[in-house]
Structures are given as C-alpha cells and as structure tokens.
C-alpha cells in the first residue's frame, strides 16, 4: 500500500506563481489560473491550489476555517469541538462547480469563527496561539478532518487535480483578492490527497513551494520542540511552521527571519566588516542553525500585508519576478508571467537566498 501524506515524507516537484497589487486593488482569480495553467507540464495532476487574500471583507474580523471532511460523522465531531472553543458566526459548504477531471472530492466546508474569550483566558495565551492550538488539535486528533485554511479575510482552495481544473472547480473567478498565489504539484510518491495539495497554511500564512528540502527532519524536530505537530510530513508544512514560529512566536522581523531560513554563508559572514552585523549573523546562525532550510526550493509566502518569494541559498529551483505598475508577479517561469502581463516594467531572476518582498503600501493595509 502506498502511504499518504502524514505517514511518510513525500518529496515533490512543482510550479508556483503569485500576484500582488500593492495598492490593495482586488482582482478575480482568472489571471492566476491562466498563469498556473501555462505551467501545466510542471504538474502531474495530483494536486493544485490557490491562496487568496482579501476575499472575505464582510467577515474580516473572524477566522475563516476551510475544512475537508471525509464524512459527516467526523464533521459533526469536529463541529462539536469547534463550538466548544469558538462562536460560529457563519458556516457553509464552499461552493464548487462539477468538473469531470475532479473526482472524489471530500466534504469542503468553511466556518467564520470568533474564539471564546473565556477559553483563551483559561489557557493564558494570546488569541492567535489559541487558534493555532485548536488547529493543531483537530488536524492531529480528528481523523478524517483537516483544516487547510485558518486565517482572517483569506482563504485557500486546493485539491487533487491540475491547478487550472481546481481553480475552475472552486469558482475562483467569483472571488476578488489583492494577493493570489497558486501551485501545481508534481509529487513523486503519493496517490495525492486533497489535504496534501498546496498552498499550505496556518493562520494568515500560506506557502506555495517548489522543491524538496533536505533539512526536513532537522527542521521538523526543531519546530516540534516548540509545540508544532507536523501531521502532513511535507516540506511545505514545516516551512509554514518555521515562518509562523519565527515571526509570530519569536517576534522576529521578517527580514531577520529570512536571514535565518536562508542564512548567509559563513565565508561571507567572516568577510562582513560591520562588527554588529557580523555578531548578529553569527548569533542567527548559532541559535537558529536548525531553522536553516536546505535543499532546492523556491517558495512564495503569503500573508495579510504582502508576499515573500525566496530561493534556496544556491538557487536550485527557478524563480522569476516582474513588476508592472502596482503589481508584482512571481513565478517559476517567465512565460507564466508574460501570459498575463505581456509588457512588464521589469523582469529579473533573484539570486539564491535573495528575498523578494512585495508589501501592500502602508495606506492600503
């Protein structure tokens, strides 16, 4: 029998793409589907998905949980747990459109939730940590239920199939977002499971990822020391956890977090002339040695204020960036950008370890 995600570590290759409008102007999912569809060859039909930010303005103060259920039984059990911890503002089945290429979908539901203040106070933790713990609990202990999106005013749509089919399945042309990211999956050793598709998310973080990280178990055992439970055993999951841990839990600024996961080489640190910077880099590499992400990857990290695109330190995966007016495009292939933006202002390939950060302008956040 072939193991699903969660039983065994699955390596995979992929296509990624992402768009942000820094002015916060929203646009529907047609462009992102077009872009990811161009890279059809980079997927094998075993997974595709999208993350969109700004899609639930009417519920923007509530946690939007997207959940896959294997059956109604588990749905009821899970809802019981949710009800104990949250006030359910709204819940509904996520609208989909039948597509012959998409089969055996699970039950796909979304909930807009407000955590119960009493419960948070009982645990003496902040709200986000409370939600994080609930998500961990459900994903670990409620077999057949899987939360694949848990942020505010954002959502993930993913499943087994080619990404363009998934996009149409989820009617993404009906959603408006200022950030879109997408992923087409090429797993090498899995039947494909809806939960295993990208993006992977936690709270407001979403990650689409191309590559395979060879530091996986070092990273996993590191984040697990801080309360994370890697249920999926995928690289993307551990990357998401790393960012969540560094930025949310350890309060580390994004730019420093980047220095942790794609740490500068020791040789370059030795050459650094600014003593305080040198000390900082050495400290980063000492304390967060196990958070270094190794192996080939390109990722797009989405969050409420923008996106971060990043390559591994020696650029073993493709990554292209383009800008046009207020929009920034990031993709595995330049053609996937040109298909939706035929006259960009600027196109370039960032170097290994060189982060691309595209943020909403302050006034639009």
């Amino acid at each position, binding site marked *: 029998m072939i193991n699903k995600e969660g039983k065994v*570590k699955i*390596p*995979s*290759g992929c296509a990624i793409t992402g768009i942000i409008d820094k002015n916060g102007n929203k646009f529907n999912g047609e462009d992102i589907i077009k872009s990811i569809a161009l890279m059809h060859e980079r997927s094998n039909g075993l997974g595709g998905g999208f993350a969109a930010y700004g899609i639930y303005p009417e519920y923007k103060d509530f946690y939007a949980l997207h959940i896959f259920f294997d059956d109604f039984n588990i749905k009821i059990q899970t809802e019981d747990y949710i009800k104990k911890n949250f006030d359910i503002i709204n819940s509904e089945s996520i609208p989909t459109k039948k597509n012959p290429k998409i089969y055996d979908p699970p039950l796909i539901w979304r909930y807009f939730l407000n955590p119960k203040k009493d419960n948070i106070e009982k645990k003496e933790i902040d709200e986000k940590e409370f939600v994080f713990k609930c998500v961990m609990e459900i994903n670990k202990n409620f077999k057949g239920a899987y939360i694949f999106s848990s942020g505010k005013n954002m959502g993930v749509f993913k499943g087994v199939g080619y990404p363009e089919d998934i996009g149409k399945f989820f009617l993404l042309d009906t959603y408006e977002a200022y950030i879109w990211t997408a992923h087409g999956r090429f797993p*090498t050793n899995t039947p494909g499971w809806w939960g295993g598709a990208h993006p992977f998310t936690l709270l407001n973080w979403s990650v689409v990822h191309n*590559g*395979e990280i*060879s*530091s*996986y*178990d*070092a*990273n996993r*055992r*590191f984040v*697990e*020391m*801080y309360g994370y439970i890697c249920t999926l055993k995928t690289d993307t999951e551990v990357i998401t956890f790393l960012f969540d841990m560094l930025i949310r*839990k*350890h*309060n*580390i*600024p994004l*730019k*420093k977090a980047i220095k942790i996961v794609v*740490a500068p*080489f*020791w*040789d370059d640190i030795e050459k650094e002339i600014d003593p*305080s910077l040198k*000390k*900082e880099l*050495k*400290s*980063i*590499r*000492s*304390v*967060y*040695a*196990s958070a*270094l*992400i*190794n*192996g*080939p990857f390109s990722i797009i990290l989405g969050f409420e204020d923008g996106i971060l695109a990043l390559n591994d*330190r*020696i650029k*073993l995966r493709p990554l292209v960036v383009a800008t046009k007016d207020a929009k920034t495009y990031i993709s595995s292939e330049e053609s996937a950008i040109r298909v939706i933006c035929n006259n960009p202002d600027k196109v370039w390939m960032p170097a290994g370890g060189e982060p691309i950060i595209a943020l909403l302008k302050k006034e639009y956040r």
Partner: protein
Amino acid sequence: MSLNFNTPLFEIIRDKNKCIQCKVCVRQCANEVHWYSSYENIVNSDNNKCVNCHRCVILCPTKAITIRKHRLEFRNNSNWTSNAIKEIQKQADTGGVLLSSMGNPNKLPIYWDKILLNASQVTNPSIDPLREPMETKVMIGRKPDKLKFNKQGDLITDMPPQIELNVPIMFSAMSYGSISKNAHEALARAATKLGICYNTGEGGLNKDFYKYGKNTIVQVASGRFGVYKDYLNAGVGIEIKIGQGAKPGIGGHLPGKKVGADVSVTRMIPIGSDAISPAPHHDIYSIEDLRQLIFALKETTNYSKPIFVKIAAVHNAAAIASGIVRAGADVVVVDGFRGGTGAAPTRVRDNVGIPIEFALASIDQRLREEGIRNSASLVISGSIRNSSDIVKAIALGADAVYIGSAALIAMGCHMCRSCSTGKCNWGIATQQYDLVKRLNPDIMYKRLVNLISAWNHEIQEMLGGMGINAVDSLRGNKLMLRGIDLNETELRILGIKYVGE
C-alpha cells in the same frame, strides 16, 4: 620463584636474506626485543618482550621483519578461551587487578555499521562540494531560546559564549602525563591550523601551550591537577570530567615514574609522586553540587567560556544529561563504552557502559522532549573511527564529536594497547625523553591536519550527496538514516527506520 606461565603473544619473523644488520630495530625497540650478536653478525629477537607495536617493522629499511600472532594455542574451548586462561594465570601470578589500555576490544555490536545513509536522486539534486559552498562549521555552546530584536531591528539578545569549530570534530581529553608533550603539541598545533579544539585532559596545561589557547579546552577532573585561575582562563572552554567511557565510575592513576620535572610542574604535584584521580569529585556528590562547580567555574572565567560536562555513556544517560543541562552546563559530552584510555581495569573497560549510538539518540530525544535541546550542545566520543561515523552521529543529534584513538593512530599509535608500560615506541604514551622525541610534532600535526581535512572532505561529499550544504541541516536529521540488522527496539531507541521503509 622461577615458574613463569608467561608465553609470548607474538612471533617475530626476520628474513635473514633481507636483514642487513643495520641494527635500526635494536636501536628503536624500547622493549629491548632485538639484540645484535657481533659474534654471529646477526640480529636476534626475543618474542616474549614483543608488544606488536610495529615500530621495528615500519623502520626496517629492507622490510625484513614481520610479526605474527604466536602459534602457541590452548586446546579449543569456546568458554575457556586462551585469553580467559591467560588472564587467570596473570592474576595468579601478580595478585593484582588486570589493567588494559585503549578501548573495549570485545566483539560487541558496532551500531555505526548498522546504520546507512541517504543520498539524493533526481527529485533533489546532490550538491558537489567542489563547486558549491559546503559548510561544516558548528557553534558549540548554550543557545538562548530565541533571539530578540528591538524596534529598529537591532539584535538585543546577549549571546552566551560559543566555540566556533570549522569542522565538527575535536581532539578529546588526553592528559599531559598520559601522553607526551610532543603529542600534545601536535594536537594543539593541528587544532589551531584546523580551527577546531583539543582538550588538555586532566593533567594541566604546559606553559609552552598557553599560546594555543584559542583552540584549547581545559579539563577539570576529580584530581584537579594543574587547576588554577590562569589555567581555567587559558582556553576557550572548560570541561568538567565526571566520567570516561573506558572506565565509568573509576578514577585514574598516573604512576610516579611518569611524573618527571615538567609533568610535575604542569600538574602541580611533586616529582615522582603518583597522580591519583579519585573516582568521584569529592565536591560533587549530587547534581546540585555539579551546578555549584559549573557556576564557580563560570564566575572564575567571568561567564566568558562554555562549560562542558563529560560523562560516560551509562544506562540512564538521558536523564543524567537532562540534569546536567538544567544544572547549567553549556555542553554535554558523552563518552561511549568503546572510548580509549591509558589504563583501566580490564573488567570495567570491557563490561561497564553502553554503546554511544544509543546514549546519543536517547539523550537527544530526551532533551528535545523537554524543549532544552538548544540549551546545550551535545558532543559525543568513544571510538569514532571515520567520517561516516561522524555523519551518522550528527544525524542522530550530535553537534560535534571528540576523537581520541583516531588522532593517536594518525600520530603513529598501532593499538598495541601497552600504554601503561610507559614505553610507547611511537613517543605517544610515554615520558621518556628519547621516546618522546620520536613523535615529531612538525610531522604529526600535519598528519592530524591531513586526517581531519580528509574526513571533512568526506563529510562534505556525504552532505552534498544528501542535498545538504550546511552541517546544521544534518543535525538530528534522522530521515537521512536507515537501520539494517537491527530489531524493533533498537530502531525505536535510535529513532530511525529500517532500510527500505
């Protein structure tokens, strides 16, 4: 009493056609095995004295000498082996505790050999260390739980002291006294050249070697030999030695004949006096006592140096290690049951302690479960034989390894296990001037540098094969390991899967 049960262990075979009577063997054997007969113009040998150290074999210019296991046998008996019989005869002869040198030689499983490594194929490119950076630097010392930055993005966390190692290998504690000054010089110079550390052992630090301080870890053991303020401040780290893999629970004894003028000054004991290290530290009878010593040392060195605590790998090593970390140690050193020694009671050496592989895996797991793995570095030792042992150790969770026997072998040790006689023909485990001279630090430090450089190349190759370009990403990365010929319990404790899984 003339009755002597001793029989030769080895047989020296000299090819008469090749022997040119140059007498190099005669001059070079400190055990006086060879002697020249001018009457016959031949060189003769006395098998009884031979310890099979190969000095004569290596130096004989015509390679006329070979040494073999002596053919004398006892009647076959799987229970009463010749070794068992000889040990009884020896004890009946002397009435003493049997002493042995170097590590446990018995045929017990070597778990390194039952663990196999991974490599990338297709989905993940392997990295060529000849073309791409390949980092093997590690930082040894306590790490804070997290780094804090102020609003301007400046780092405001004060880092505890760290030791930078260019290669995750150090030379383990071998005292001046048990080994020669020249051996120490070679280790110190090699460590300096390589950007790693060597350890003084418990014999103090010779004045001539203070200059290698940046690459020195000084040891404080139960005998407290040569310990004073300058000594504690001389290196980059201090190691409290609680135990040693070769003889857990046992102290040490340097015979007075090895305490010459220089050793005496360095150890701060009278010339010719026996240097006895008690089994326990007489000020450490519990974990809280250890904490006091750790902080006493930190106070003395103004919190500028990581404090190592070294224990032997024993049954509940994981719990002990956790206690050591909580007692404030910055580095935990665990020495496995194959670790070497100048001299140990044979029964202890061969029967006490556990394999380092298990101690390591269980300590690493325990510290992670307690969320304190980052609070201390974990260094292991005890018969690391090659670079793949090191890669496996790091993947099982070690930050670095100590090597002792391997370093000695690089300097000429042939594992004849006669260290305690003080007549080491290779100038290592001896204080006899003419023998010490045979270890030329100029040559031997280069051999050590060669060895570690070679191992580093190999580590880099293996890392690259796994698609990793920094050793940081190997640490605790048990997915890179698979077990073979191991049962479920062994796999569980090691935390690795079986091959093919």
